[in-house]
């Protein structure tokens, strides 16, 4: 079967400032980030869509012991986008020491930033970012 929106195409979208996801022709759910099938109904009749780029913070942590190749501290978070999907990324534009429970439920806009690859990844890549509105 056809992989409608590959990781590489998703990355190219981020490069252009587009947040590409998949809209299900069966149930209308939006899958973001992309995968083979609709995250809700498992349908494979999907079309590429651009998400609006806003959401709500659901949880977060401040990483203070980082994997080799990353520099702590930084914030990892999950947000629910307005189209319903959840996505992981980095909360930026906030001092990690100011991150507390009040973040949960806050409105965010989505973007992306470049992260340097390491021995195990295929070059540099873009990661979803969240910024408080």
């Amino acid at each position, binding site marked *: 079967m056809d992989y409608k929106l590959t990781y590489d195409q998703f990355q190219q979208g981020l490069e252009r400032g587009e947040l590409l996801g998949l809209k299900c022709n069966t149930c209308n759910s939006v899958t973001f980030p992309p995968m083979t099938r609709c995250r809700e109904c498992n349908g494979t009749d999907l079309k590429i869509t651009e998400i609006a780029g806003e959401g709500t913070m659901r*949880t977060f*942590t401040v*990483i203070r*012991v980082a*994997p*080799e190749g990353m520099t702590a501290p930084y914030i990892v978070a999950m947000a629910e986008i307005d189209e319903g999907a959840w996505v992981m990324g*980095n909360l930026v534009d906030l001092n990690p020491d100011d991150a507390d*429970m009040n973040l949960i439920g806050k409105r965010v806009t989505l973007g992306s930033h470049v992260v340097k690859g390491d021995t195990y990844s295929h070059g540099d890549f873009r990661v979803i970012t969240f910024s408080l509105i």
Partner: protein
Amino acid sequence: MRQVAILGVAMTKFGVSEKTNLEMFAEAGLEAIAQSNLEPKDMEALYFGNCLGDFEEGQMHMAPFAHAELGLPVSVPATRFESACATATVAIRHAALLVGAGVYDMVLAGGTERACAMGTPLATRTFAMGHHAQYESTAGLTFPGVFAMAAHMYSEKYDVPLKELKQNMAEVAVKNHYHGAMNPKAHFQKEIDVNTVLDGMMVADPLQLFDCCPFSDGAAAVVVAEAGKARELVNKPVYIAGMGQASGGPLYLQKDLSRVMAREASIAQAYKEAGVGPDDIDVVELHDCFTIAEILALESFGFYEFGKAYDAATKRETYLGGKLVVNPSGGLKAKGHPIGATGAAQVTEIVEQLREESGPRQVEGARVGLVDTLGGDFGTICNIILRS
């Protein structure tokens, strides 16, 4: 399915070891075989767990070398299992499935890990390979980070102020160190108090150093056998009453990290096969890789309602002598967590408990025990219910 039993069980002392993965596994494997009143040549298969040998020692495809160390016949297949931290439990489950199906009568299953050899930065990086490589680990996620996000969600969802939750999480570490102090095989055999936890360095907010299990070296192995043969060989075979295994996808699809959906599916399978429920379990070895993880597991098993297990250790309900003894070995927290070996060490503890061989940490009258191991981002859960 034929009835399946566990014969010999053995583990090395967990901690920092100068021994190789193969040396540690040979020690545990040969002891488990000898304890079963068997010889290596009696094994019909080796199900061998290891996660990160490639990075620890530059060694992949370790199973045939372990096979040689043990002196198994060439006709005996050796197969590697990798299910992150649930590796050895998954190996044992598959050994039991094939013994139950009549393919084999005797299988050696377990695992080995030498995580300390990597040092913390590389170990943190390689463990993070258990996250989704495109959409999760790229954000710099770590395993403490996953459970840290779960703790924040738990606090929010159940309206338990974070400070109060952390105090109660610290009590989980205190309990598991209390148990570990009685276990001569444990990585840490030292009691701590709540302040030890709350004064520790922050690893991933809100988890501090003593909320986290260590990187450990160690190996463990068990002999899985057809029950009739088991009864001829040893006085106290321990029987596999039920098993379960289930899988979850990336965290962003799981969404609510306060509920481990794969665990709820896995334990339902195990309870059904064993014909038991939460009230029938006397002793539990569960996956306390982080303090919050023990709380989540207690709720998944139905020992507590959702949102109600956070103060179980504080109320001493999960202590030795409490109403449900949880992690009498010291758990991953104090006994240590050599990820490829952990599940076999949990089975070892429960088998010894059911044989009443646990000395000062013996759970009085334990007849039914539960093993719970979690791999990855709640991605694999494997449960085994054992009975005497």
